[in-house]
């Protein structure tokens, strides 16, 4: 009896040491947990995106409201020229409101692949049209230490019908916090295009998350785009009706 309990204990220890939950959690479950954590049920926050080049920088300020994968609203708060523009996503439809000319522009999918205001992020990175859980197949490659954090290393290949720009992603997700700590983006020829690194884990609302993301293009390592989260709250209820063209125009008007 004691022997059996001891064996069970040893087995338990062994499983926790050798990858712990990975033995129990599939690669897909790990990605889902990371995705759920970074999204929450809802989120609303303020961010600053900075494009960094050797001789200059440019910043874009934005406010964002997200609800699941279905709804997203982004308000540009700076620079002056773009301030007041709003992007709205409802399920598979997207619009851009340009207040100066009172124009609602419907955004087609090809525009999603475009870089976000000249940065190394695509529109899709910001609005999260595609889902890292639904639109990919996942394979656990093992565990690695990245910038002092123990991470699951996961390979993700997009499903053929998914509206995704990439050919392959490699994700490093922290084993302790389930944060996307590093991502490598490959094109359809499996050439490395971008590397994303996360930093500055801080408490934001009810959770600790990396508050600084950096994207570096593989071809130009001296270039990068930084996305800093200034504030964010999760799981505060947002009505579906908030994600509407009427509220979109209202937010645009009141943007300071």
């Amino acid at each position, binding site marked *: 009896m004691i022997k059996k309990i001891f064996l069970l204990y040893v087995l338990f220890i062994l499983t926790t040491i050798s990858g712990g939950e990975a033995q129990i959690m599939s690669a897909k479950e790990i990605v889902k947990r990371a995705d759920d954590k970074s999204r929450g049920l809802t989120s609303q926050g303020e961010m600053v995106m900075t494009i960094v080049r050797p001789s*200059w920088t440019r910043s874009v300020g934005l406010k964002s409201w997200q609800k699941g994968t279905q709804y997203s609203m982004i308000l540009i708060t700076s620079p*002056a020229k773009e301030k007041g523009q709003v992007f709205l996503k409802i399920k*598979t*439809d997207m619009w851009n409101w340009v207040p100066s*000319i009172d124009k609602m522009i*419907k*955004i087609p999918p090809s525009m999603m692949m475009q870089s976000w205001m000249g940065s190394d992020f695509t529109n899709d990175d910001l609005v999260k049209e595609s889902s890292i859980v639904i639109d990919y197949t996942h394979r656990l490659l093992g565990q690695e230490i990245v910038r002092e954090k123990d991470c699951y290393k996961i390979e993700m290949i997009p499903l053929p019908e998914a509206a995704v720009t990439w050919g392959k992603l490699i994700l490093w997700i922290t084993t302790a916090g389930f944060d996307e700590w590093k991502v490598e983006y490959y094109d359809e020829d499996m050439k490395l295009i971008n590397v994303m690194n996360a930093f500055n884990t801080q408490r934001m609302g009810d959770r600790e998350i990396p508050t600084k993301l950096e994207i570096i293009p593989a071809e130009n390592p001296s270039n990068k785009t930084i996305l800093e989260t200034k504030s964010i709250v999760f799981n505060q209820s947002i009505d579906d009706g908030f994600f509407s063209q009427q509220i979109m125009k209202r937010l645009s008007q009141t943007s300071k």
Partner: protein
Amino acid sequence: MKHEIINGWSVHMIILFLFFALIPFSSNPQDSGKQTHFVFNGYVKDMQTFIFQDLNSDLISANLVHNRLNLKWFVSSSFTAAIELRNRLLVGNLLTGYPGYNQTFEVDQGITDLSWNLIDQKSLLFNTSADRLWLQYSRDKFQITAGRQRINWGQTFVWNPNDIFNSYSYFDFDYEEKPGSDAIRFQYYTTPSSVVEFAIKSNNLNQATLAALYRFNRWNYDFQFIGGVVDQNDLVIGTGWSGQIAKGGFRGEASYFIQEKKLSDSSSVFLADIGYDYTFKNSLFLQFEFLYNSNRQSTGNFEMNLLNSQVMSAKNLFLSECSLFGSLSYPFTPLITGSFAGIGNPKNKMFFVIPSISISLLENLELTFTAQIMRYTGSEVTGQNLNMIYARLKRSF
């Protein structure tokens, strides 16, 4: 005469002074407390224009300092008011080269005249005008806006047959906000992505335009239907859409105008516009548009009026019959974007080439070079070539 005293140097000094003086000191409205009752922004632009027919012809030039001030006032949670002003100072022989050009600044298409030439001399003009001045009431899904406002019912980018309230000219690129109209507009949002609108406006000839729109979203498309009376003269029905084909944007608009008092057999006019745009992964943006304009009043010769938004009508957006537009734009770096556009009208034997380059010098300072090069390919002597070159510096705040 006063203008003769103002020599080249002092004019430049005035321009330079205005350029900086008109930038308000509190150009960072983000710092103003949490209870923002006012939002203030705008820009100052300095644009140098050169117009010539060919290398041997006279050179017409003008320098335009253009300041825009936008002020919004949040009176209460349901009331908002706005005023937007344009201050323009024009110096150059454009004023003498095109007699009456100064008057086009003072023309106001609205019920009230809110455009004043405060200084109007031989080669110097200063005009102040208000092109937005409205009060808005919002409650639940309902909104009413009264005053000078832009009512934009267009779906496409170059020619908008559905934009019956305040048409604009694609060539008038420096008027970024485009004209407004003196109107009362009711909007009711039936769902998060659909709206019913009703609007009534009057122009400076006291002719009323009265029309309704219904826009809704289905099958990843926005569809709209419009109907009404334009300038108490034409009945109009129209439709428009925005959707996608092969991941690119597929948009279009069509309007049919029927003259109420039939003057001739050709008293009805049909305009249709169809467009496609596609963005490649490297951010190269391609755009095409095709316009059919059955309006025979469009003369064969290109007129300066087609460059001016103030005198445009949805009934006659460009030259008659078929016109084609194509453009590609590409961000060489996040700071430098180049574009190349072409517009052609085979029947009237003319085409336009519009190259442009835009450079972000500082966070809020942009330099743009653009040209509108018109070529007439016919043999009639009345047809002529025209070259317009622009350099513009814009400081936004």
